[in-house]
């Protein structure tokens, strides 16, 4: 290392300062897309994040299918047919916690302060982040489907069924991610967001029909599992994969996603503005 390359060059700094004229402000769309680009760069630079969230569902897939599959459904292949659409839900929903974690990281590192001091369209950082998020959702969902297919899973509705299920789950995640964004803006550290986030999503996922048919459960639990939105989403995902769309379940899933966004998006934007 030579000193020449690691020091500031004052003459060059002076030239750099003199040489600028303020360009016209970019429009809202370009600003949001620029933040989207930032989200993609993070996916590229920090692939560990993606790994974390995809490994857990894959582990569950292997464990449940081979350990309990025979006991639960009679055979591992029958169980795989039942559980894979649900694991798709689990895999993608787990990824949404990262929306909150990355927002909190921005906040605690002071990056949010910089963005908020810029003359830009205010919701752009939040909306742009969705783009990076959606890439993560799609990758997480695709990984679980591919592993399933490798293990012998064949959706009746083929590729289009799988894509439809994936699309539904991703749309649902857009809604849910705002709930975690609120957590991300309220809690003190990225770790706290992770803990609180998984503390919420983990039990909800297990108390759903992702792993077991609720018909086998005791009464009160069964009642809970049946109204759990994650069950409804898993049912919708299963029906799409099977090529027999369960329209009410799909509509309820979309409605829940819309409701989540309606409640949590305004809270997120308000907190983002004032923190």
């Amino acid at each position, binding site marked *: 290392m030579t000193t020449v390359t690691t*020091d500031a060059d004052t003459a060059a700094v002076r030239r750099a300062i003199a040489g600028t004229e303020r*360009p016209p402000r*970019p429009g809202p769309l370009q*600003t949001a897309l620029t933040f989207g680009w930032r989200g993609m760069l993070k996916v590229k630079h920090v692939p560990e994040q993606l790994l974390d969230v995809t490994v857990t569902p894959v582990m569950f897939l292997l464990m449940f299918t081979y350990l309990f599959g025979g006991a639960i459904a009679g055979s591992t292949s029958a169980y795989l047919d039942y559980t894979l659409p649900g694991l798709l839900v689990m895999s993608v929903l787990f990824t949404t916690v990262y929306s909150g974690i990355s927002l909190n990281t921005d906040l605690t*590192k002071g990056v949010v302060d910089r963005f908020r*001091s810029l003359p830009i369209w205010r919701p752009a950082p939040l909306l742009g982040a969705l783009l990076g998020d959606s890439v993560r959702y799609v990758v997480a969902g695709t990984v679980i489907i591919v592993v399933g297919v490798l293990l012998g899973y064949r959706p009746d509705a083929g590729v289009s069924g799988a894509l439809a299920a994936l699309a539904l789950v991703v749309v649902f995640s857009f809604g849910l991610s705002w709930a975690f964004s609120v957590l991300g803006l309220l809690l003190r550290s990225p770790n706290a967001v992770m803990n609180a986030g998984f503390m919420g999503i983990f039990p909800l996922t297990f108390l759903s029909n992702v792993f077991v048919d609720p018909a086998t459960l005791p009464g009160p639990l069964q009642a809970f599992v049946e109204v759990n939105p994650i069950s409804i989403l898993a049912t919708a995902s299963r029906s799409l994969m099977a090529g027999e769309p369960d329209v009410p379940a799909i509509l309820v899933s979309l409605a829940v996603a819309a409701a989540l966004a309606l409640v949590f998006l305004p809270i997120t934007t308000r907190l983002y503005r004032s923190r």
Partner: protein
Amino acid sequence: MSLHAPLAVEATALTKSYGATTAVAGLDLAVPAGTVYGVLGPNGAGKTTTIRMLATLISPDSGSARVLGHDVVTEADAVRAEVSLTGQLASVDEELTGRENLVLLGRLLGLSRAGARARADELLEAFGIATAAGKLVKHYSGGMRRRLDIAASIVVTPRLMFLDEPTTGLDPRSRNQVWEIARALVAGGTTILLCTQYLEEADQLADGIAVIDRGRVIAEGTPAQLKASVGTGALHVRLLDLDRRPDAAGVLERALGPVSLQPDPAVLSATCPDPARAAVAVAELARAGIGLAHFSLDQPSLDEVFLALTGRGAEEPPGSAPTLEEQTS
């Protein structure tokens, strides 16, 4: 509007509280355009909170402020269009490379793709980060990170720049570089509002200084005026024999004035208007038969400014200014 030099920042009776904590308590500030203005204060004085209000990140509970002629509450967007913030935390994205950070800001400020890249490269080169341009910022040293942070603030040269403790935690060489950059900015016509805990830093850069304590301005003036009110430096003596502390304090007090105690019980300090008087004080100590392990003379520290202005040290809570009697009895 003022009839005199135009003001870049004009704050009147700003306040901001967090629950029971009053972070800023009726702060007035007038920063002439084209200068470096230092806001000097200890931890928790309200420096960052003030900057955050002026940079429109938070709104004041009461009072008002105009930045470059725009009201920070009702014309926040116009303020943002002309200022840059270099926050206390180097607010760069650690998960991006240095170059990506700068391109990102260029794009957000409206440069074309090619324009943003060219500007990023120009700044990386000028700030001595070119060799690490493609590395993730989380692997940068503190000095590089701070330079990148400042570069990020001048992707488009701002008319006013907020610099919040830009050199805290940097080694002397990095600190000098940051100071050089700040000087270059002012030479280019940018006004700088600099928050710092170091009198030396304010002295090096600032044309005017406001000393703040518990959210209020307690003194204002040029660095020379401020230092004159404090003395040019302090004499520190380390005693060989702890038992002689009261005697030593007496001698120093007669020779120089108020004595402040240091965390190390063997060390006594007294502000000192000129080195000749320090020499006299040391001679007096010798005449009194008080042995010294060591003595030194330095620039006034913020602590000494505080002692002179408030009668208590910077880090002590109000009302607990220790007297020598209390500590030695």
